[in-house]
């Protein structure tokens, strides 16, 4: 897909995100806005997904012969839901039910309500990399040559289970696995290097046996290029340090942990939407 077209979709997804969290006065806009470009790139360009004749995605829980994405930092569910809906997994109108009673769009992603596109619950941090390792292992056992992607937070790297999985993947030669860290330098209590300094994450993963590369997470061209180039070694998993700006696309939300889990009020929503103009062919849910 053309870069410009992907950018248009990303802008619409960002509109969805701020409207969704505003509507229920809860949710996590900051990280969602920062990771929008990545999820749009994956679902609209990079990943091989099952689609019907109209190009809408078809959901297969087992993901046989298609690429797979896991969201480990489940609190950025708004971007995940918007991208899944706009890929055709479920009606875009359902985004209006986010975080409401009886919705399939739970606060954090869950499988219990059978929302197409979600394969595992996430929210309690540190578990997604292990799940992705298992799925990548299953693909190898099945002779399925498709790829597994997983997105994690940088604050999430403080969880011990991450490093159990980081040891496992290279040991079992999971070259069909690409893990991406949303390297925005923020977590709930403040800047990551002040809350609990992760130090050199790239050097850590390299020492654990991963291919490590960097990517500008709010630059669509760089995302597309890096993701296409990153899965070259069939026996070594790839770790991408994705530099993003929390709140990207909405100026007053950018660069601060304050918008990690806070919704905009009516006035702030209007300002935000003004900065995210609807483009040709797109419309709000």
């Amino acid at each position: 897909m053309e870069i410009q077209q992907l950018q248009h979709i990303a802008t619409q997804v960002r509109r969805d995100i701020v409207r969704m969290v505003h509507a229920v006065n809860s949710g996590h806009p900051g990280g969602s806005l920062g990771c929008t470009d990545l999820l749009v790139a994956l679902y609209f360009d990079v990943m091989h997904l099952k689609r019907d004749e109209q190009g809408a995605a078809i959901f297969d829980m087992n993901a046989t012969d298609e690429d797979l994405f896991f969201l480990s930092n489940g609190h950025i569910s708004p971007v995940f839901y918007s991208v899944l809906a706009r890929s055709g997994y479920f009606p875009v109108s359902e985004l209006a039910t986010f975080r409401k009673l009886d919705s399939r769009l739970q606060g954090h992603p869950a499988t219990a309500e059978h929302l197409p596109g979600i394969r595992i619950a996430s929210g309690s941090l540190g578990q997604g990399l292990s799940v992705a390792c298992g799925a990548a292992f299953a693909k190898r056992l099945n002779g399925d040559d498709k790829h597994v992607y997983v997105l994690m937070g940088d604050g999430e790297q403080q969880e011990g289970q991450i490093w159990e999985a980081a040891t496992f993947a290279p040991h079992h030669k999971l070259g069909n696995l690409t893990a991406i860290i949303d390297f925005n330098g923020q977590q709930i209590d403040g800047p990551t290097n002040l809350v609990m300094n992760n130090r050199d994450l790239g050097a850590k993963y390299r020492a654990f046996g991963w291919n490590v590369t960097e990517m500008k997470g709010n630059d669509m061209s760089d995302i597309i290029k890096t993701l296409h180039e990153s899965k070259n070694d069939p026996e070594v998993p790839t770790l991408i340090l994705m530099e993003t700006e929390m709140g990207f696309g909405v100026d007053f939300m950018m660069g601060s942990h304050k918008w990690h889990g806070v919704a905009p009020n009516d006035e702030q929503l209007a300002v935000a939407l003004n900065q995210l103009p609807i483009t040709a062919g797109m419309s709000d849910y």
Partner: protein
Amino acid sequence: MKKYTYTEKKDTRSGFGAGILELGRTNPNVVALTADLAGSLKLEGFIKEFPERYVQCGISEANMIGVSAGLTIGGKIPFATSFANFATGRVYDQIRQSVCYSNKNVKICASHAGLTLGEDGATHQILEDIGMMKMLPNMTVINPCDFNQTKAATIAIADYEGPVYLRFGRPVVPIFTPADQKFEIGKAIVLNEGPDVSIFATGHLVWEAIKAGEMLAEQGIEADIINIHTIKPFDEEAVLASVRKTRCAVSAEEHQLNGGLGDSVAQALARNFPAPLEMIGVHDSFGESGTPDQLMKKYGLTAEKIVEAALRAKSRVV
């Protein structure tokens, strides 16, 4: 009292090892995982025949649970193995979110449960695992009593779609259930029928319950003895049918009284048919080092204690 005999003693974990080897041969989707305890879990046979379907995770149980959940996405049936302590309490949140809330087809198979792990002591002797696992929505909890039943249960859970906790142990115990049994999840097994008192037992305590039944018979008391191999889903119907007849009951398990089999029996009786219940189990304490026999005796998990409890229960019937 029906006569139960045995010619051989074996550990229930070897029943698991035999079961998973057979599964390896019959079900190509079965995958065995361990966290550095392949020998203790008797996986050698499976590893030898199916090395590509064996996943060594190293000493990282949390990751093993997550990897297992991931393997189900791809149609695999993962059997994640460790000691009961490290397979449950240590990884409760991983089981809760990645397995039970996500309703993944993961089989958590745990050996060395309870006091009979022996000399390693309380750090390794978990007595809370049944309670923790049965509280989780979507989880099935099974605690078989001997080699044959553990083997049959291992094979049966592969055909059941959903999370399962299969609990077994380390010591050798009498093999008294049939080698060709078909294991039915959630269906209690009546071992002896009697009008005087109901004895509900699980795991290693089932054999003790049989011995207790023989001692009671010598006193002219005929007990209903029921093997509750599945704690969840709980066979409430079998429990109520028995107590409606006997009007008093004993529960027996190698587990804390809180959260265990006795707790499930008590709930069923209180809700449906209040009757005297005496509970054999561990009273809110940790275990300690010792031989399995010494420990079972010190903590009162013996046939003699079941007999005393049965007499107490019977005396309370109004």
